[in-house]
């Protein structure tokens, strides 16, 4: 991965900066609104929401080396917070967002206490296990639609004020949340907290020999990333106005990993670009053929095989066999 980072184009590095990313999002939204498209804001809002979830996962993977295969769980918890609170008549954003964040962070921390006993592939699988358990629990909540899910009563309000009337409003909000998150997580990465996480990831023995245990740092990272995914879930529920266990399916966790890895984990902005790439492929190929996933698979495969690799070596390898 280091070789790639070194080669990681001087020409495009600027794309990974939060300010540039947010400016591009804002520009796209402005163009969409100016041209009067009703649909483009929907797609932009969706992309920003998924990017938000992907960025939180990227922080876990890139900084702490914790590859969670269960990140759909906190995303779903955020969405269910909106649904369940709504059923009790609570739609105030000042309640929903903190609630979604807290519930998701609590889940991630509680499962993290156990999951952090494991490393590597075992960590990947235990996070998957926890997320699957939650997926089945959500499917059994017959009061909230069970496996089919349920529509939310109304989008979030601000003391009765409906501030998310259109998807444009929602996109503005999602882009802002993405921007704040990128800034905060970059700060956190640059701080001693991030250093501790990265050292723990690269050389755990060394930390141990210094008498340091990154457990608490990792747990905080898990909780923070989970909480942010929870915020993304709150936004997602408001955008779709429907909540179902499908949000917590392991496929969603897999797609988030694809976004993160496709964009590269070196910088948090990569996850945003990965999310954009997946959405663009979905939106374009999906209209040409019902077999669009074939194309998506080829792009993913090609991107990994060609990335940073020496093309001649690749051909020689093939001819060799």
């Amino acid at each position: 991965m280091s070789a790639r980072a070194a080669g990681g184009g001087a020409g495009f590095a600027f794309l990974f900066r939060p300010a540039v990313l947010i400016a591009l999002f804002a520009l796209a939204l402005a163009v969409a609104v100016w041209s009067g498209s009703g649909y483009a804001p929907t797609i932009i809002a969706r992309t920003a929401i998924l990017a938000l979830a992907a960025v939180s996962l990227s922080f876990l993977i890139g900084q702490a080396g914790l590859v969670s295969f269960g990140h759909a769980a906190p995303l779903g918890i955020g969405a269910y917070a909106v649904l369940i609170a709504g059923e009790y008549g609570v739609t105030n954003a000042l309640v929903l967002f903190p609630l979604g964040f807290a519930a998701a962070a609590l889940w991630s921390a509680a499962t993290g206490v156990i999951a952090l006993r494991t490393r590597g592939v075992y960590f990947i699988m235990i996070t998957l296990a926890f997320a699957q358990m939650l997926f089945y629990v959500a499917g059994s909540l017959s009061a909230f639609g069970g496996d089919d899910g349920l529509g939310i009563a109304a989008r979030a309000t601000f003391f009765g004020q409906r501030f998310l009337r259109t998807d444009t409003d929602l996109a503005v909000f999602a882009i802002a949340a993405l921007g704040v998150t990128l800034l905060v997580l970059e700060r956190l990465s640059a701080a001693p907290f991030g250093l501790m996480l990265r050292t723990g990831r690269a050389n755990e023995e060394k930390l141990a020999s210094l008498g340091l245990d990154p457990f608490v740092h990792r747990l905080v990272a898990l909780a923070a990333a989970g909480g942010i995914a929870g915020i993304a879930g709150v936004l997602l529920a408001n955008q779709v106005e429907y909540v179902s266990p499908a949000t917590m399916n392991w496929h969603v966790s897999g797609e988030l990993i694809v976004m993160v890895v496709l964009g590269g984990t070196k910088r948090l902005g990569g996850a945003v670009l990965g999310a954009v790439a997946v959405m663009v492929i979905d939106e374009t190929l999906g209209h040409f053929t019902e077999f669009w996933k074939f194309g998506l698979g080829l792009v993913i495969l090609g991107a990994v095989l060609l990335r940073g690799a020496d093309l001649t070596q690749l051909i020689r390898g093939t001819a060799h066999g």
Partner: protein
Amino acid sequence: MPASPTRRLVALALASTALAATALAAPAAALADPVKVGFVSTLSGPPAALGVHMRDGFLLAVKELGGKLGGQPTEVIVVDDELKPDVAVSKVKALMERDKVDIVAGTVFSNVLMAIQKPVLANETFLISANAGPSPLAGKGCSPFFFSASYQNDQVHSVMGQYAQDKGFKRVILITPNYQAGKDAMAGFKRNFKGEVVEEIFTQLGQLDFSAELAKIQAAKPDAIFTFMPGGMGVNLVKQYQQAGLAGQIPFLSSFTIDETTLPATQDAAVGLLSGAEWAPNLDTPQNKAFVAAYEKEYGIVPSLYAAQGYDAAMLIDGALKATGGKVSDKEAFRKALASAPFKSVRGDFSFNTNGFPIQDFYVVKAVKRPDGRYATEIQSKVFDNAADAYVAECPLK
């Protein structure tokens, strides 16, 4: 060293989003103002076969009508809902806001329909289901803009309950997946069945192995079992039911389990098993004979009820457009036209109730191997005549 291919790829991707966004925003070139239908179907993942049948039935009708509905040039935009409610909502918004469709049709699964009905109906766009028929849309949540070219979910299960009652079965075991539609299936069955339900077995959604459940059934020796196992789950259950030696011994009553989407896979294992339906390929109406022949010629397989409903949905739209002179813009007129069900259904008797759901006949059908070697369902007996659904009284529409 220059930028790596991936970096270039993402940069390109980002640029293309901006482009795409502008392209999408360009006002749709209004040429001859064709009728636009957005067709939502499940085309990927395990249950894709159902969605393909439904879509092909719809497209066959449009093709037979010369690419026109109601004499108007017609554009059908097919989208894949991936059986994910949030994906479906986003794609349906695209259909309404970008493609400006006049009508949304399709939906195999109730959860997808329940997710998209809110934005579609709030937009006062007509929504025509070619399969899913969840109870809220038939009852309190009914809408003047919603019509079903299929059935209300409970009805098909009730058919089997009535059949078990008529046959004098005393002890029945119910087995369905553990989700809302499974619970609804059990409730629908029990509405007309007055005997003893020995056990209600809930299985995992997408379950592969039914050995534990089959062993229980074998031990309990009921008069019959009733099951609702759509798609691949049904294939698994039917194969294993036959292998366990139960197929000849305990009558197998089902809904959405034995049909032409699964029969090519289950073949002989399913022959003789029963299902509830409002249609079968051998139903004797002139429209149905022509449809089945055309479908088998076009696609080389026997149509299922999903295909028949897709076909009927297109014919319904065609008839309503003819009545309004090809216009959807006068919504009240188009609604009235739809409500009069101005088409000849492949099912024969077909009229709309006040809630937009059909009043029609229901049958018990049996899987057979036809003389030409293909597997299909055949009408066994009629169970309900001109039946309305159980929720219509809750619908405020008159």
